């Protein structure tokens, strides 16, 4: 019972064709109505789903018939409608889209009897054979171009740019054969206009082309901004901004242009773009963050901090509800910015942390302290879960955040508050830390295996010591510094697997060395203050031994030796250390709390003293 394909359509077929077209038009109108619908979203989502199902059913009906050229424009249009509605419902392009496209193309080939059975062609080959067929009926072209634009959207979203270029070259025909530039290809592609009685489509090829054009320019621009080819990025972003750009994308594009100009050394022009971005008005977080960077580059601290404050405020507002879209828009084609990108603005607490740390770095200790306290209250207060910690793969972990807060408080002269923060930190984590009793016990017994303790615990003791020292409580300060040193020297964390990433970061050798130096010098200074110069001397000596060439350590050592009148030792040390002196501290890679702490023990007249001492040693040598 071999089935025979009937090449000519019976009369009843054309009337059903009209009926199906009517059905398609009705479903498309229904879908377009949904965008204006203000009903609760469950109902709306359900009707969108129903519309999609209706379209799918219609598609299945059409695909059940032998492929024939008269029915194909309708079939392809229904297919396009299905794909568009589905993609906008799910807000993603899923793998089954390729199957739909493949099926559609195979139907086109089948109708023209070009399809070799059993040949498993990929999408690329299918497009090639469909478009290069000499006898492609002209009535198929509008629907085919629409399908091609959806294919282009899919390939762009999955970064198959080579396939996309090839497709566009074929679509454009011989006009721009040689061009490899996707932007040019997209611009020169003019989808044929539909004839008037064509079945309705949700989004025609031309509008999809415009979406593609803008999306591609954006993607290129963002990528080039990150890779650093700034002039290209600038031209691409201009291209994107001049195209059809939804407001949320326009904000991103203007911000990216601002970042681009900032990096090119045009901060004033950057600010102009950022102002434009703010005027668009959908979201102002991104331009504000970028503005703070521009002001930082300009050295305008007040403006920088003000924009950061505004940023924190902007991020506190919850985002507005989305409206339902039944179309494919530019946002759908833009990749999510990764945390390292200048287009990533992070959460409110991240912004708050940035503000606080900038305050601390720029010497506004009081403001920094306030901001840190706000941040801690937000995070640790517990009542609201609406604030996330500013942890990201780039930022500090929570204990470090507490340490920064404590450092800021000490810097602002609020030692008691700093002590509270530190105590709270140790209290909350006490259950996780090795029991101190067993620690001392093991230390006494000299057990082989020593309990390990995270570095931030030692740092907490260091800051506590600093706070006590600020309160002139020497005894407590000395005990904290000693405990810090004990932990640092005795309980080296060996097991790398236990800590999280951030702990490993602050375990870096440089940071650990600097922490020891800071603790030793701090204790030494405490000894000096209590008049026990010999004890101080040994601490200073140790600090210089740990970190040869450390100028602070050298300064205090020499000063103490001088005060003790041990000039020979001093000059001997000077001669030995002189060669190593140029080595500067590897600042910048240190945690902020440690940097702040080091700034406290930094003697103001260090360089002058060292110079003076050097000349005096030389003189004594000459003598």
């Amino acid at each position: 019972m071999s089935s025979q394909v009937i090449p000519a359509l019976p009369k009843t077929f054309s009337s059903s064709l009209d009926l199906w077209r009517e059905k398609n038009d009705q479903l498309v109108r229904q879908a377009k109505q949904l965008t204006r619908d203000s009903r609760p979203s469950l109902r709306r989502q359900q009707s969108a789903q129903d519309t999609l199902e209706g379209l799918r059913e219609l598609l299945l009906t059409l695909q059940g018939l032998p492929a024939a050229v008269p029915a194909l424009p309708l079939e392809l249009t229904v297919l396009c409608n299905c794909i568009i509605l589905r993609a906008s419902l799910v807000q993603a392009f899923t793998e089954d889209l390729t199957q739909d496209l493949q099926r559609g193309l195979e139907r086109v080939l089948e109708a023209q009897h070009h399809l070799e059975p059993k040949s498993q062609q990929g999408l690329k080959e299918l497009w090639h054979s469909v478009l290069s067929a000499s006898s492609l009926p002209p009535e198929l072209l509008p629907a085919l171009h629409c399908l091609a634009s959806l294919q282009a959207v899919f390939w762009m979203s999955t970064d198959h740019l080579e396939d996309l270029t090839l497709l566009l070259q074929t679509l454009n025909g011989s006009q721009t054969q040689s061009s490899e530039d996707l932007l040019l290809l997209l611009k020169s592609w003019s989808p044929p206009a539909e004839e008037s009685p064509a079945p309705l489509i949700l989004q025609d090829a031309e509008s999809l082309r415009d979406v593609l054009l803008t999306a591609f320019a954006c993607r290129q621009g963002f990528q080039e901004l990150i890779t650093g080819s700034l002039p290209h990025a600038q031209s691409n972003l201009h291209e994107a901004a001049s195209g059809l750009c939804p407001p949320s994308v326009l904000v991103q594009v203007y911000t990216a242009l601002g970042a681009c100009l900032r990096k090119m050394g045009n901060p004033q022009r950057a600010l102009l773009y950022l102002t434009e971005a703010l005027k668009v008005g959908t979201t102002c977080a991104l331009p504000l963050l970028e503005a703070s960077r521009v002001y930082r580059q300009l050295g305008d601290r007040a403006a920088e901090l003000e924009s950061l404050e505004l940023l924190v405020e902007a991020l506190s507002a919850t985002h507005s509800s989305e409206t339902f879209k039944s179309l494919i828009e530019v946002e759908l084609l833009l990749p999510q910015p990764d945390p390292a990108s200048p287009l990533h603005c992070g959460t409110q607490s991240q912004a708050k942390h940035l503000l606080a740390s900038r305050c601390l770095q720029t010497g506004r200790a009081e403001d920094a302290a306030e901001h840190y306290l706000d941040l801690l209250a937000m995070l640790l207060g517990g009542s609201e879960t609406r604030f996330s910690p500013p942890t990201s793969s780039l930022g500090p972990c929570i204990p470090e955040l507490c340490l920064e807060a404590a450092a800021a408080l000490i810097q602002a002269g609020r030692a008691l508050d700093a002590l509270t923060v530190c105590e709270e930190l140790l209290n909350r984590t006490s259950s996780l830390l090795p029991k101190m009793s067993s620690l001392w016990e093991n230390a006494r017994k000299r057990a082989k295996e020593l309990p390990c303790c995270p570095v931030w615990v030692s740092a907490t003791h260091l800051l506590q010591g600093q706070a006590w020292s600020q309160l002139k409580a020497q005894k407590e300060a000395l005990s904290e510094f000693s405990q810090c040193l004990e932990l640092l020297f005795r309980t080296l964390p060996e097991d790398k697997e236990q800590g999280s990433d951030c702990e490993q970061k602050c375990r870096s050798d440089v940071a650990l060395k600097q922490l020891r130096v800071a603790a030793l010098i701090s204790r030494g200074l405490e000894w000096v203050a209590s008049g026990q110069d010999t004890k101080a001397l040994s601490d200073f000596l140790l600090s210089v031994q740990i970190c040869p060439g450390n100028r602070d350590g050298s300064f205090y050592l020499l000063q103490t030796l001088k005060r003790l009148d041990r000039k020979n030792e001093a000059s001997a040390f000077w001669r030995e250390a002189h060669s190593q002196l140029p080595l500067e501290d590897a600042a910048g890679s240190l945690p902020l709390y440690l940097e702040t702490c080091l700034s406290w023990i930094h003697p103001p007249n260090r360089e002058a003293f060292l110079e003076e001492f050097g000349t005096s040693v030389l003189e004594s040598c000459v003598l």
Partner: protein
Amino acid sequence: MAGASSRVHYLSDFCCPLGGRAAGKPFVLRHEAEVFLSTGREFVYVYDQEGGLLTAVYQFPDQVWHLQLLAIRRALYVLCARTGIYCLSLDSLDRSGSQACEDKEEAAPPYPVIHVDPDACVLPDAALCAFTVLDDMLVTLAQGPTQWKMQLFERPCAGEEPLPRGQIGEVELSTCTPPGGVPEKPAAPRFLPVLCCVFPPDSRAPHGHPQGCGCFTLEEALFGLLFGVDATLLQSPVILCGLPDGQLCCVVLKALVTSGLAPGDPKVLVKILHHLEEPVIFIGALRAEPHEEEAAGELLPGQHEHSDCLVALGHQGRTLAIKASWSESGNLVPELREYCLPGPVLCAACDRDGHVYHSTPSDLCVVDLTRRDSPWNPEKPDGAIGGLPSVLCPASLNICSALALCVTARAPTGSTELLALSSKGRLITCSLDLNSEAPVPAKMAMANAGQKIKELLLDIGDVSERVSFLKKAVDQRNKAITSLNEAMNVSCALLSHPEGDRPIACTITTSWSRLELRDMLMATCTLENSSSFSLDQGWTLCIQVLTSSSALDLDGTGSAFTYTIPVDRLGPGSRREVTLPLGPSESGVLDLPVTMSCWLFYSLREVVGAALAPSDPLEAPYLEQFPLSLPKQEGVCLPLCKRTVDMLQCLRFAGAATHPAQAPCMPGPACEPVETFLKTCQAPGSEPTGAASLRAKYLPPSTASIRVSAGLLRAALEDSHSGFHLCSATLRWLLAENAAVDVVRAQTLSSIQGIAPDGTDVNLTVHEVAVTDLSPAGPIQAVEIQVESSSLANMCRAHHAIIRRIQTMVTEQAALGSSPPDLRMQYLQQIHANHQELLREVQALRDQLCTEDELSSCSTAQKLLHIYKQLRNPSLVLL
């Protein structure tokens, strides 16, 4: 433990979940006196345990997958498959009676069925698979196209406008396999992920969550160890997630807050704790370390001590327990143990005393994770303290197939009460007193004798239910094995014998009969079982009818049609007849020859598959313990016979027909009864109408002839022709397989007129000739068989049939070694050359035919026909 006494009370009966586990996940939870329960269908029942009656039944648009109660907010959250999360206010339960609408279809249920309004849906999302609700947050897990997606929302309240406004954060978990089925209507996943929320000890306790609701508090050390310093410092709840692929991962809730709709970075937010390598069924926490007596005494009645052990159960029974302990050096280290419990686990629960209850299809077991053998010593100076037991010993509670469990608050007596929903849809409570000794039967008082008997009867009922399940499964397997054995014997018997004397044979005969006013050629297949085995369930007789292509259809390939007839018990010595119509079809066409092949097929799927997948899917878990996989082949195929039906077998003979008046009717495309009637009324000799008959009347009949040497024929027909003239013997041999030829057989005919299936005449004439110029030894005696028909097609078919027979005969004779007589080679070559020439001409003409227009093609066709005619009348003799 074995002596644990259980008191089982039967509470109520609910419709048992139709379709078993595929239908959804049953769920039971209890708050004070109210029990909320779903059986895996669309209903949620509210049952008042004190009053012992159903208070409300809610009907949802699709299966209910999960329930969670937020008692403090008086709200019940329900996850409905493929729809979203609904929120019902408990306060509205009381006034629900007024707006209840009676379900008309069912015969007046005793309780009102309330159809849940779609507006009660607070979070519409078709992809949701699990959720957990906190005081102010709602965490959901949705299945994306490639990944699991965890989302955090502000907790929506009942009656609130359902908008996706409150999304706070989102993160993607590991990859998942997308659900099968149509993209728009995904099939229900076999296993759903499990979500639960872990609170740090100092946070505001998860009050308002009834026990066993997926929320628990872990003690500090374990919490910090599992989730890290940040979570401890933030005192953030942590979402634990057990995925169907076996992954156990956690997300710190406070870190899940992301900006806008951008999903968070999974590398920072998601931490994988363990991989069970089988679907996670349950996550819970318990107290494994017995607390000090005095500390326990200090606890307020409502205050629970925090759990110190996290437990996760996989589907096949793999169990993970994690505890925090201190290493010798004083460091906090995780103590992690994996156990294997009997699977497959249907559901599980745990109480706070260190007991894990897990239900398999055959039993409900309890295991104890506390280490009761060695009393905990807080002063122990070194070594791990309070470790986990190295082996778990499950103790049976004698309840089978509990689909949902809920451990409820301890009664003041210190016993635990279990609420269970059995696979038959029964809600039962089971109060356990695990610590007490076995009850002493002698001390039974008269007062509770009735109660005791009731309990015993219930126990017996449970056990018998279990026995019947198992028995059914065993029976099914035995049956399948017997059937397989029988099939094996039959296969051996068939394959070890050569064709011809097989113990199970199939013969095919053809005959004409009248069906619905049309003459039909019927084929009768007779399957005869002369073996000592019987063909039973699973055997199918398959008959394939393969028609040759029509001569008119140049590139047609003919068609094949396979009939499959189940052989339902064919015992030794019995036979079965199957009659099939071969044609002609409605249009009067019968494309001869038709090839029929018969074979027997044994379906493994039907026999073994039934035993592997029992009709009640609830019983399937029994068999999952011994996974048997079906072989890749679907069955066994044993060929029986093959037969070709050609024109000679289909000829009818007017003179010999049983009903002479009933001339074979002219089958036309339109078989209107009236027309047929008129046709049958026509006198047998009257003028036939139609193109075929016109052609028959005015065109000279087509002929073909075949010459066979008389010697060859004599040798071949040796046994049958004795007593007959060679010509009539030949004719009889040709028509031997024709059922209608009996009459011919009685006479000695040398010529016969038959009627082809389409009604045209076919004449067969056999006469003896002498071929003179072939052999130098003199004339060769030969028999000429002449075929003549007004229809060219029929003549060809008959010619083909004769040639086929003679071909067979000649090859048989050649095998016997008869030598041909001397031949004049030159003459033979001449004839051969002539034929070659003719064939070339045919080829040329055919090519011409393809390119020419209509007018000239007519003449070409004429020429072609002429040459074919010449070819059909060779002067060669078959020797």
